[in-house]
């Protein structure tokens, strides 16, 4: 069977990513990539809801944190990590079902505020109930394997991308985009808008929970409330806007850009690195309102045309 040209690049990228632990001895680089995959998973999760469905959520830290919390607790209770991570994802779905669905009743600007409230409540509650750090005991640290965490993080990130891609290409995806573009018009043509919004929320929260699970498996020590911090809500929002809202490649590009610049500036610019980091992203948003993906619209790339990524494909990717 002949593989279409447009599939070659993702296959090569995944192949290259899979061989990284074999090619480098730098634990720093491998650790960085694990965090990149966590960012990609979380950003894709946010993108499904915010980018394709137009529901700007500021509550993703609650789903991410819940996934991390349940995964860590299950794993520390000697439950296999894969089951623990799935448990983490499911717990995020339950949280989304209980608290997120009422939020979906809110319209326009009230939805982000409602989800932000959820994130704050979750952080304070966990901080009060579990104020202790969840450091790994020494027997877990002795057996710590970075490569197993790397491949798990990579697999979850690929799964996140594929799930969002599949949803967006499906009938549900068309409905989500229709709701994003004009909810009242979508309702007028018979789309059950609330049902589709719930579907997007539940899938999105599941992916965020899986991302949290990977975080919990990767980190040797953190306070239980750390993954509930609001920065985990702002991060996927920022990376998706930087990369390109409502595109598949956008959150990946945004995550790479965010992580790479953050590290580069932190190691080279001293104490003012956060100021320059923030300024850089203000410039990106100002001059590239469509994110990094909009560069390809400005400059027609011969390669993208040759690979069969025409305008129609780019609108999804």
């Amino acid at each position, binding site marked *: 069977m002949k593989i279409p040209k447009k599939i070659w690049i993702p296959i090569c990228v995944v192949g290259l990513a899979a061989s990284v632990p074999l090619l480098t001895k730098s634990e720093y680089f491998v650790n960085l990539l694990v965090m990149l995959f966590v960012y990609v998973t979380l950003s894709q999760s946010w993108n499904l809801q915010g980018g394709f469905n137009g529901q700007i959520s500021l509550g993703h830290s609650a789903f991410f944190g819940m996934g991390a919390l349940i995964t860590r607790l299950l794993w520390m209770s000697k439950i296999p990590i894969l089951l623990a991570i799935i448990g983490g994802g499911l717990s995020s779905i339950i949280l989304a079902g209980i608290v997120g669905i009422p939020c979906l009743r809110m319209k326009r600007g009230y939805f982000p505020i409602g989800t932000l409230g959820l994130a704050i409540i979750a952080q*304070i509650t966990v901080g009060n109930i579990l104020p202790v750090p969840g*450091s790994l*005991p*020494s027997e877990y640290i002795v057996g710590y394997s970075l490569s197993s965490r790397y491949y798990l993080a990579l697999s979850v990130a690929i799964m996140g991308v594929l799930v969002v891609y599949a949803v967006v290409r499906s009938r549900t995806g068309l409905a989500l985009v229709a709701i994003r573009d004009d909810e009242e018009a979508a309702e007028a043509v018979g789309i059950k808008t609330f049902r589709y919004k719930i579907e997007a929320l539940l899938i999105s929260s599941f992916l965020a929970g899986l991302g949290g699970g990977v975080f919990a498996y990767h980190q040797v*020590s953190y306070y239980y409330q*750390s993954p509930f911090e609001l920065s985990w809500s702002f991060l996927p929002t920022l990376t998706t806007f930087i990369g390109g809202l409502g595109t598949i490649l956008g959150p990946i590009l945004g995550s790479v850009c965010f992580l790479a610049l953050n590290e580069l500036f932190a*190691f080279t610019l001293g104490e003012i690195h956060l100021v320059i980091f923030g300024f850089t992203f203000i410039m990106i948003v100002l001059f590239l309102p469509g994110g990094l993906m909009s560069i390809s619209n400005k400059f027609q790339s011969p390669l993208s045309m040759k690979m069969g990524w025409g305008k129609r494909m780019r609108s999804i990717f």
Partner: protein
Amino acid sequence: METPRRKVQLRKSVLVLSLMVFLLLGIWGESFAAGEAPKTIRIGCSISLTGIFGAGGKWVRQGYEIGIKHINDAGGVYLEEFKKKIPLEIIFVDNESDPAKSASRMDKLYSVDKVDVFLGSFAGALIIPQLATAEKYKTPILVTTMTSTAEFQKGYKYIFTPFQSEQDQAIAFLDVIESLPKDQRPTKVAYFGIQDEWGTSTGRYLKEFAAKRNVEIKLFEMYAMTATDFSSHIINAKNAGADALFTTPSPPQGVRFVKQMKELDWSPKLAFILRAADDSSWPKNLGKDGDFICHSGGWDYHLKVPGIQRLNENYKSSYGSFPEIPAGVAYACMQILADALQRAGTLEKDKVRDAIASTNVMTVMGPMKFKSNGRGDGKYLQVVSQWQNGNDELVWPKDQGSAPLAYPMPPWSKR
């Protein structure tokens, strides 16, 4: 006459020969370099230079830097393996006061900068992830302001701190009470703890030790990490007739707490406000109202121990004030590290770790050893300071004190 083809062949041969010589030189050079002394001993420190713990991170950095300067002024640390003194070099990376980055930036220090040993950040929230990370890399770490005992009960082998523990803080408070004449001692203690790991476990130890010494903990209440209103706690204490306070607020909370005590006219005989009152900005924020408040920060620049005068003078000339508590502890960490490296005589991490574990050295914190779990076993960990006329005075232990304890705290109306 050489043909063009021969010329090309000749060039190729020269190139191959050059490459071989280069490779051989490289291999020889590397094997030669393996026995050479390193130019510096590399110390890695992921520290909070920005974010909410930025100020504390800078104090810790100042302490490390003065410590390194003093050691390097004497030529560095003598390592028996290389038969020479080698200067110390510290590599700082900013962790942005983010616990996740506090650990992840150590990945870079370990695998890119190839550091020989780690030093810790400021604040327990940032230090705790660093401890497990150092353990993961089997690289010794010395940390500063870390009161948590729980992390030192996890069986880690490479983590050390000379700093006071939660138990030390509770013991210091009870020791001060016991030092007072029996008929003047406070009899009802109100404990108000911040709802975090430190506040919870400090309260637990206070309860446990107080029961053994027949001191009554009349009130035991917690407040949220973001709490701004303490009036209900203060009114409860007033109604219960509590005459001693022990609380663990953040610096802004501590200032609010005292202001609300004044508004509600509650003045216990003895008031311990940990952490918040450590800060040199205390009298600036509270003026006279900040007087009589005691705190136990784990170190004080008034201690009468060798080396402290040099630290105080150098710090004052560099930064214009006496060293803050984290700076003093950071300086002591450098003293401990230099001593351990010299005794280890090598940069092998396990040997350096063993040398730190067997420390018995005089520092600016007094004589210092380590317990088997890595916590400091120093003589002066239970220091108590008190704000008097806007000055921070060391009042406990008495033989080290710069002033006697001002007791009891007068009512607000008589100040």
